[in-house]
């Protein structure tokens, strides 16, 4: 709650400090607020936190437990890195920064919501600023296209999500998650799950799948990612995805857990398998790095969906680890992509020869590629391992598909490798000291969670 308030306050302050003045640099201010919010997370953890529905939090609609705080930490870390790396170089207006912070607070609401109304408001608060962000290059046709596509898809998926909520409301008589949980539990035990509830959860799943761009609702994301300005793309790829996953996790893994075998389990499993395969295979055929990254992020959504299918304790740990790994690596890759492609060349060739001119960058890129591909001793491996081992008991075939997907992913990650390390060229990135610090933080996250992922679990708060 404290973090949420700080982010809100920060958004408003940033918005008004920069108002009217053209060249004010408000990035440090935004970073300050996000930093404070991030620092407040451990404080919240020190108190005794409920795991799920033990109510001892005064705020009724928002629910700050281990799950929401952990996801909030991921979101804040991600936005800290994004703001640090993408806010400093290009002149970003304070209005855009403020909007990003509004969006971030929408993400935090989403992670903490304990009521479908709050989920809805969270989604909207997360998305509406991003519709604007996607179109912030006003005269760029690609930017316009991305904005309109993102907006239409977003509004459309929200409508579907709301229809699902209505059905759930009709079948359980409630919109707060605790009552839904009870009702679903009772229904499961009476062996009389209402078809209304099943179709409601399916529609909710569809609506949220649009947000995380899971198959078959992924088609918009490569276009939107490509057309949006880089800072919006990285925000969509990291913060939106993780926030939407936190909502999916809470709704499906916890609230509707009892219905998994009955209704959505196999659907999610098939979706995740298709997402993984499609994302990885389609990424192979791209010539534009940004589109490749978009498809790769689709594939990663598939892996994260797997974590919904297992018991909440294991799934939570896995998805959290995966989120950390994913955001840290994505931010690094997008940063270098942003710096390199500034002269409008978004092909793989733009990366040619980076290793010669910028060793630091090449090593960091290698590290994040390894993490994304799931090579051991990076956080990506720890995340993949925990997801796979948790899912193996029930969904063996899915794990095989996922392993196959990982093997395929090597090929396109190594295309970037090829350009960076093995091809002559003149790609150059002038990393400032400030950027280097943020990149260093991301790299440390990757390495630390890769070498000793147990530090996450060993924090006493994560012991379930």
């Amino acid at each position, binding site marked *: 709650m404290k973090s949420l308030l700080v982010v*809100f306050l920060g*958004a*408003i302050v940033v*918005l008004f400090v920069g108002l009217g003045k053209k060249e004010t640099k408000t990035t440090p201010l935004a970073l300050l607020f996000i930093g404070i919010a991030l620092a407040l997370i451990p404080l919240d953890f020190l108190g005794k936190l409920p795991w799920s529905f033990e109510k001892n939090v005064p*705020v*009724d*609609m*928002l629910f700050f437990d281990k799950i929401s705080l952990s996801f909030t930490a991921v979101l804040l870390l991600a936005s800290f890195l994004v703001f640090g790396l993408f806010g400093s170089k290009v002149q970003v207006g304070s*209005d*855009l920064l*403020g*909007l990003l912070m*509004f*969006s971030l*607070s*929408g993400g935090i*609401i989403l992670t903490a919501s304990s*009521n479908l*109304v*709050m989920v809805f*408001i969270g989604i*909207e*608060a997360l998305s*509406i*600023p991003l*519709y*604007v962000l996607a*179109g*912030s290059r*006003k*005269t760029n046709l690609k930017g316009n296209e991305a904005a309109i596509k993102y907006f239409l898809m977003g509004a459309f998926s929200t409508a579907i999500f709301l229809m699902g909520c209505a*059905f759930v409301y*009709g*079948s359980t*008589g409630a919109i707060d998650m605790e009552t839904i949980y009870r009702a679903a539990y009772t229904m499961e035990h009476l062996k009389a799950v*209402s*078809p*209304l509830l*099943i*179709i409601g959860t399916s529609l909710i799943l569809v609506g949220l799948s649009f947000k995380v761009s899971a198959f078959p609702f992924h088609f918009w994301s490569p276009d939107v990612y490509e057309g949006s300005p880089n800072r919006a793309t990285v925000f969509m790829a990291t913060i939106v995805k993780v926030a939407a996953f936190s909502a999916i996790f809470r709704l499906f893994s916890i609230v509707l857990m009892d219905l998994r075998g009955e209704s959505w389990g196999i659907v999610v499993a098939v979706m995740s398998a298709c997402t993984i395969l499609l994302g990885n295979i389609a990424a192979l055929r791209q010539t534009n790095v940004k589109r490749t990254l978009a498809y790769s992020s689709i594939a990663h959504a598939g892996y994260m969906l797997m974590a919904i299918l297992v018991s909440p304790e294991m799934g939570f740990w896995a998805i959290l680890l995966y989120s950390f790994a994913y955001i840290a690596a994505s931010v690094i890759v997008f940063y270098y992509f942003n710096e390199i492609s500034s002269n409008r060349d978004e092909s793989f060739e733009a990366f040619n020869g980076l290793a010669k001119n910028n060793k630091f960058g090449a090593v960091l890129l290698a590290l994040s590629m390894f993490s994304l591909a799931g090579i051991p001793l990076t956080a990506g491996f720890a995340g993949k391992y925990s997801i796979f081992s948790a899912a193996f008991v029930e969904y063996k075939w899915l794990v095989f598909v996922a392993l196959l997907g990982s093997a395929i992913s090597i090929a396109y990650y190594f295309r970037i490798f090829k350009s960076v390390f093995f091809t002559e060229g003149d790609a150059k990135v002038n990393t400032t000291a400030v950027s280097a610090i943020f990149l260093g933080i991301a790299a440390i996250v990757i390495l630390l969670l890769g070498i000793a992922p147990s530090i996450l679990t060993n924090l006493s708060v994560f012991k379930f």
Partner: protein
Amino acid sequence: MNSSQILVGVLSFISILGAMYVVLSKNPVHSVLALILTFFSISAHYVVLNAQFLSVVNLIVYAGAIMVLFLFVLMLLNLNKDSEPQKPKMASIAAAIAAGLLLVVMVAAIKDSADRIYHNTVEDVGLVKSLGKLLFTKYLVPFELSGILFLAAMVGAVLLGKRDKQNEEEMTNTVTETGGTDNG
């Protein structure tokens, strides 16, 4: 068949008719007008359902504010003519199949389970008083948050609507007569 059944039937018919016209009309302005008609019928439904507050809000927010905004934009952009090119048949068939499938699935789900929804009519449901009480106690947090959401939306709309000099110079095919700036 008693009077309320007939009333609901007629209202439903109007809603569906309006909705069909929204989708099928070639002229966007006609669509908007049909949509307003649909919204009015839905408001009437709310009255029948004893949800007076919603009915009023629906009229004010949807039929009043949003639809006027739509009309305003349509007029502003001079879109009030049949500008849309014909779509290939295949696309319309595919769209119809997709929508029809969803409808069938939903109807099939309802068929068996509608009677399981329990009826429990409480006197003050839907009245402004009870809703207001709930809104400012239990739903205070979402209420405040949606205020902030509005702030964000407003900033965003202004940001998109305004034209800054730097962009003006880049602009290749500037359209001068369409300066809609205040849609927030």
